[in-house]
């Protein structure tokens, strides 16, 4: 049987595909006519453009966030807030996540690739990335005019040497103390001072409730040891970014921490990570620790009956002869940054988002369950009222559970105090030199004097390196 397909004797006819599933046998004349008509249509179309459906490419804005400790916050931000904003501005929002401990390595990879997210959220101040970051001054300064700024936020995102705002912080997390009120009441102390922590801690440990201060390389340890150092009237650097750690107040702080370690804590604190004190407090094992309110919020969800036993207090006050300062580092510092290599149109879009987000910070404050305190205080007008009337705590019969947070701005300060959070302070933080200094003396591998001297020797080259780069 002979086929009618190509090469058939029926030379005047051809099988032509008329749509996806249909073929039609047409004559040569019919085929030529159709081809001519098609060519004419294409030609005319170029002279007289025919109506066409043109789809404009939707703008896109990408975020890199660390996974928020309040899962509901991510749902609110991605499922509600950014959807509303994206719809209003015809922008598709994409939010990617990394674990909180991997924010810096991911940032380094984006810098190396010269390609990354339009908005990058850091978990600690990011002065070490300053040369790669866009100046946010045009955004920050109008916001300061409108809402004011918390000093620690300014000192964590501004470089006075280069006059550059290398980040925009919309929020920070206070670092209060969580303590077992029932146990502290039994020994008759209030955890208001470092002195009380040592005195009460001796009795509490004997009762099976040790104090919990990490002396390891985790963030909590970095923050807690800074609190202690500052409250004893010392610091890593002075306001002029010069290393001043090797002094008699540091030695006193080290002696104090050595006593706390030996007399009130378990050796396991030398190996703690950021979740260890959360676990210790939630398990009813430790009697006092410094941490964000994640401990309290987790307890409210997981163990409401136990929650009233764990209360919140301010960061402890230092010894009166050394000034009696009450200072606590921020637990988490949220700052948004824009890479210099981000295309200009994306930079403008990112800044527009940040401006609108700042103006709506009230919603974010509630969404974060008071975890994120405003860096621009005017963005949350009734902060004190909201904190004093927390609904979850009220349901548990603890209406004033978070009242100590209402004074958090007074005793919270920045990494780098009394100076700015600059590059070398960031490097000293990342390499955990301060916890190491305390741990070396606590474990008797060095005397307190030698530990302070060791810290100075480690820190001076770091500061010199950053000074040579012209960034401090």
């Amino acid at each position, binding site marked *: 049987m002979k086929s009618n397909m190509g090469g058939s004797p029926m030379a005047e006819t051809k099988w032509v595909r008329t749509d996806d599933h249909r073929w039609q046998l047409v004559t040569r004349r019919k085929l030529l006519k159709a081809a001519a008509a098609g060519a004419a249509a294409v030609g005319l179309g170029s002279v007289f453009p025919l109506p066409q459906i043109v789809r404009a490419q939707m703008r896109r804005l990408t975020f890199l966030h660390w*996974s928020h400790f309040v899962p509901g916050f991510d749902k609110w931000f991605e499922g509600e807030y950014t959807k509303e904003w994206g719809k209003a501005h015809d922008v598709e929002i994409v939010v990617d996540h990394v674990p909180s401990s991997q924010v810096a390595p991911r940032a380094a990879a984006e810098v190396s690739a010269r390609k990354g997210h339009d908005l990058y959220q850091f978990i600690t101040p990011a002065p070490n990335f300053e040369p790669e970051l866009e100046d946010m001054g045009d955004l920050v300064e109008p916001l300061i005019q409108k809402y004011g700024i918390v000093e620690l936020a300014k000192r964590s995102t501004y470089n006075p040497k280069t006059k550059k705002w290398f980040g925009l912080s919309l929020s920070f997390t206070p670092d209060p103390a969580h303590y077992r009120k029932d146990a502290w009441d039994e020994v008759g102390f209030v955890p208001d001072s470092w002195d009380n922590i040592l005195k009460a801690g001796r009795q509490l440990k004997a009762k099976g409730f040790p104090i919990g201060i990490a002396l390891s390389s985790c963030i909590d340890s970095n923050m807690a040891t800074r609190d202690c150092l500052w409250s004893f009237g010392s610091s890593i650097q002075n306001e002029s970014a010069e290393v001043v750690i090797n002094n008699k107040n540091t030695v006193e702080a080290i002696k104090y921490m050595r006593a706390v370690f030996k007399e009130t804590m378990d050796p396991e604190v030398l190996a703690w990570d950021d979740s260890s004190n959360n676990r210790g407090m939630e398990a009813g094992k430790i009697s006092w620790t410094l941490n964000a309110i994640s401990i309290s919020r987790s307890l409210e969800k997981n163990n409401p009956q136990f929650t009233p036993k764990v209360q919140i207090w301010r960061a402890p006050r230092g010894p009166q002869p050394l000034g009696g300062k009450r200072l606590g580092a921020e637990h988490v510092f949220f700052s948004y940054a824009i890479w210099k290599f981000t295309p200009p149109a994306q930079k403008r879009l990112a800044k527009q988002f940040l401006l609108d987000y700042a103006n709506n910070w009230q919603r974010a404050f509630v969404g974060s369950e008071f975890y994120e305190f405003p860096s621009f205080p005017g963005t949350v007008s009734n902060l004190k009222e909201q904190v004093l009337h927390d609904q979850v705590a009220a349901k548990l019969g603890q209406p004033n559970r978070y009242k100590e947070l209402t004074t958090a701005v007074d005793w919270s300060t920045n990494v780098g105090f009394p100076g700015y959070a600059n590059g070398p302070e960031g490097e000293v933080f990342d390499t955990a030199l301060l916890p190491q200094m305390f741990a070396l003396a606590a474990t008797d591998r060095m005397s307190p004097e030698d530990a302070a001297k060791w810290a100075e020797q480690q820190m001076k080259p770091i500061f010199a390196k950053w000074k040579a780069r012209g960034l401090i």
Partner: protein
Amino acid sequence: MSLELRRTLGRGALYLSAVCFTFFAAFPFVWMGITTFKRILDLYNIHNNPFLFNLPPTLENLQLLFQGTMFTRWVANTAFVGALVVIITMLIAVPAGYSLARLARGWGQQLGIAIFLTYLVPPSLLFIPLSRVVSGVGLQDSFWSLVLVYPSFTIPFCTWLLMGFFKSIPGELEEAAMVDGCNRLGALRRIVLPISAAGLLTVVIFAFTLSIQEFVYALTFISPSAQKTVSVGVPTDLIRGDVYYWGSLMAGALIASIPVAALYSLFLDRFVSGLTAGAFK
């Protein structure tokens, strides 16, 4: 001491060792299994026996893993990336290992060691320059970047492993094949590879395991959730700041490790013979 007593003691020591090793190997799985079904209150109570369910077991942790995260997608991505990396590794490591073992007589050993040394360069040093490469070829934020990069550490290791294995096969077998009319490639295909099944299987398992457990590259090259592998997706969604979802984390680790453990168990004899083949002359 009588022979009977010595025999009994020897057998007792053998069984004791077997029990210790079994406990050592099985403990992580048992722990993960228990934690998967434990309530957080039960897990955190230090007065509870950690190996018992002091409160009724719960499916909440599995529910969070499967309904609150993209776990199944991550498992699929991991399996896909692992399979492709194994194929690429085999295609390159087999001829490379064979060439170094048979053809590069004088300098094969040194070159093999040099190739192996590249495996020892840690990803924490390489991820920054490699991120530029990945971006340059337009694979950032895609799991295809892992298909590109993972062979950079699987091929050197597997080449070195196969080199030792091929060396243990007598060259006379190939010579006989070539006398009978095979060329070099034919001898490799018809004689060497069938004999090397244990070694090839070892390489497959190693390459697959190295791929699915990798963390640094997967973290730094990929950020969209839908593109992530298990090793990055699970900690990203289940470690939130200082709050760890232990039950779901353990469930994720358990489910992801079962296929690999099964693979090892099924081919254990071949795997051991593959590993030790190059160790004896």
